[in-house]
């Protein structure tokens, strides 16, 4: 019996005349959320470079939305693929060095299948995602963590500079390269771009609720699309800082410090009504975060950064000095400069 899609049958093929598909792999760093894709290891026939291929997985879409109209599914899938490809090509064109962009893209044709076309994207091979690297003992690997966070902040700023908001920044989307000396942002599949229309751009949060800022978990809708998008990225980056140092993201740290009566899974009122309690929990969360960083300089600096980046009122998120200036309140420049300074100091053991 024929299989519904060909995405699982690419092994052994040569794609775009230079990529040999070596083997299907279960998943790959940066390919989390793998309901949508099938992953392969591929090799460049000219250079011998090993890379990672992500092929669209039609079948998963049927599983993900049982009972949904087939035309709609196919439309959504092709739109999603097209968006990711276009956005990655944009990043490639703009030479965003801290974003995991594509090496190649194309479409395989396997005539023996019901749906013979398999669109694919080929990415630079990451060693792992950051979760495999981290440990959370006090002041362990501080220099490395700061450098990695600096890379990610720079990557996020690069994305923002071409009007892309990532919306799905989380530990599994931080990819490590070159003996973990370089960190890049992966998986732009849920991003939003001002110049390319995303199929998931319907005003709701396209990212992962497991990492979402509190206002979204409390179902608060921000009218201003810019605030909605860039404030979320700010929060996700601040939350990542917290994860790097204590193993909890800011959302779970907030959940830990808020009374269960006010948690998003129990609160049915408006966000405005619970905001004061969230602020109180946020303050406790920041203190808890700071208490676990032994180095006093880092404790203060990172505590302040996280406070600015993750502030529970999205309109007030961002560096206070940046907020006072003209332009976006969510500009990450000041954080990048500070992380650069701190990572260098930590590297030379000056803090």
């Amino acid at each position, binding site marked *: 019996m024929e299989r519904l899609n060909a995405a699982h049958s690419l092994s052994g093929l040569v794609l775009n005349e230079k990529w040999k598909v070596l083997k299907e792999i*279960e*998943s790959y760093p940066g390919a*989390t*959320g793998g*309901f949508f894709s099938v992953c392969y290891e591929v090799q460049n026939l000219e250079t011998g470079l090993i890379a990672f291929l992500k092929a669209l997985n039609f079948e998963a879409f049927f599983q*993900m939305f049982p009972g949904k109209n087939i035309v709609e599914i196919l439309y959504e899938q092709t739109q999603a693929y097209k968006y990711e490809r276009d956005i990655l090509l944009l990043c490639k064109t703009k030479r965003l060095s801290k974003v995991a962009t594509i090496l190649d893209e194309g479409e395989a044709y396997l005539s023996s299948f019901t749906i013979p076309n398999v669109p694919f994207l080929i990415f630079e091979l990451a060693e792992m995602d950051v*979760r*495999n690297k*981290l*440990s*959370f*003992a*006090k002041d*362990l690997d501080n220099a490395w963590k700061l450098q990695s966070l600096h890379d990610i902040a720079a990557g996020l700023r690069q994305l923002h500079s071409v009007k892309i908001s990532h919306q799905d920044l989380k*530990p*599994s989307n931080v990819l490590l390269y070159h003996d973990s000396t370089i960190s890049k942002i992966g998986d732009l599949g849920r991003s939003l771009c001002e110049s390319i229309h995303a199929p998931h751009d319907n005003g709701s949060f396209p990212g*992962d*609720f*497991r990492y979402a800022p509190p206002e979204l*978990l409390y179902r608060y809708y921000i009218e201003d699309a810019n605030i909605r998008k860039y404030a979320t990225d700010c929060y996700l980056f601040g939350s990542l800082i917290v*994860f790097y*140092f*204590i*193993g*909890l*993201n800011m*959302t*779970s*740290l907030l*959940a*830990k*410090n*808020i*009374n*269960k*009566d*006010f*948690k*998003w*899974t*129990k*609160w*049915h*009122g408006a966000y*405005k*009504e*619970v*905001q*004061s*309690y969230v*602020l*109180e929990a946020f*303050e*406790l969360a920041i*203190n808890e*975060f700071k*208490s*676990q960083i032994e180095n006093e300089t880092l404790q203060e600096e990172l505590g302040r950064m996280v406070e600015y980046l993750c502030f529970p*009122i999205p309109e*007030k998120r961002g560096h206070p000095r940046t907020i006072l200036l003209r332009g976006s309140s969510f500009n990450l420049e000041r954080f990048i400069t500070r992380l650069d300074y701190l990572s260098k100091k930590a590297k030379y053991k000056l803090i």
Partner: protein
Amino acid sequence: MAIIKSIDKRRVIPNWRDFKSTINNGELQCQQNKLYKIPNSDKLLQEKIDDFIKTPALGIAADLLSTAYILDIYENLVIEKAIDLIQENQNISSTSLIDLSKKVHSKDEPIKDQIHESDSLLTTSKHDYIENIRKQIALYKNRLRLLPINPVGWVELSRLYSLLGQPKQSENAIKIALALDPNNRFIIRSAARLLIHNDKADEAYYYIRRAEILKYDPWLLSTEIATSCILERRPKFIKESIGLIESKNLSDFSLTELTSALGTLEFYDGSNKKAKAFFKKSMISPNDNSLAQLEWISNEDKSFQINPNQYNIRNPQEAFALNCFENSKWKQVLQYSESWLKDIPYSTRPVLLGSFVAETFLNDYDKAIELCKRGLIANPNDVITKNNLICSYAQVGCLDEAIQLLEKLKPGIALLPDEQKIVLQATSGLVLFRMGEIENGRELYLTAYQNAKKANYNYLKNMAILHLAKEEINAKTDNIENIFNLVQKETTESPDNDVQELFKIVEDSYKKNRKSD
């Protein structure tokens, strides 16, 4: 003459506790109490579970645990394995991560207190108690310096200032909280309590009325009714309040103070039937305030029956103290007054009740002094607390202290309400008696008695004459017979059980005195 009452009518004014205790009391819960599930929760969790099964690294275990906690889904063996991994690797895990793993393990473990008030009020010395509050003030000031936009922090600071009897600082702090969040139930109710306590009910009403959520929030509506009554105005949202009750959308607990406030309104308007119906509703799921309210009403009108012991609620001290008082269980009254004061340290009522009972019925003057001194920390200008302290000082022979305090009160006496003047006249009589100036003491007692009689303050009149009799017997004067006859004439008809009980004590002393003669 120590006295008990500082209010004539009890209203359902919110009790002001620290944030954590208020949460634990359930007053801040959302009206609709059901769980909200984040879309696709199970699938989102499954992804993380799969990640962990594939690569059981510490970072992935941490990610899985965070996810489980955010989504509120804990029942999974793989999560248990992730917890095990974290706990086996404590040397490279953060404290937060280890804490969270324990929390997920035991699900509903309460949040660890970051700042808490002294657990024991009267077991710590006054000095330590004040020092502890000062330390907490410093801590909150520091927290607010770092995050001045946190309104809950300002409320907590305000409360701490109020515990030290610093109304100006306390009001400043609460007004900042109100400016930061004018629609928050905790903040408005705290502000109302503080401002009413500081005799600024009109200002309290302004903040209640300003809240956009007033019409929809039963906890604010009850505060609006109570505050209006204090201001002797007709509450403006009775129709809306009844609408909320009849909508049946809210839990019985959410409505307990509202129905209690409406019941009180009807009771003082003379409509006992309606009052009873409201109180009945308020007792379906009462809190400390509604329970104490009905206990108070039941003491005013015996047709309102209540047994507070049948309710299992948090902080029932006030209701229990009032109930024990009515049943002349003096030791328990003192015990509950102490825990009531511990719960609500800014209130004068537990101080007055406890010190009155300790002095009048238990002869525990040291305890009465201790209670009054503790009460004066939060209310340094409260005349009645000072009066009770003077009485206790006089009783234990600390006449210098009693005279000193009395002298300090003298300049302001003319401005006091009549009731307080009468009380102070009687107390001055006591001090003079103890100083050996029996004639002058008697004269003052009798002046107090006459003034109370003239103004129709029966309770004060009875108390003045009973205390005079006590002093006459104690001093073995020639006037015992006359005064005792007067006592018999005046007090036998009294409806107040404390008057009756004090009469028994006086009668007993009188009989003993006659025997010894």
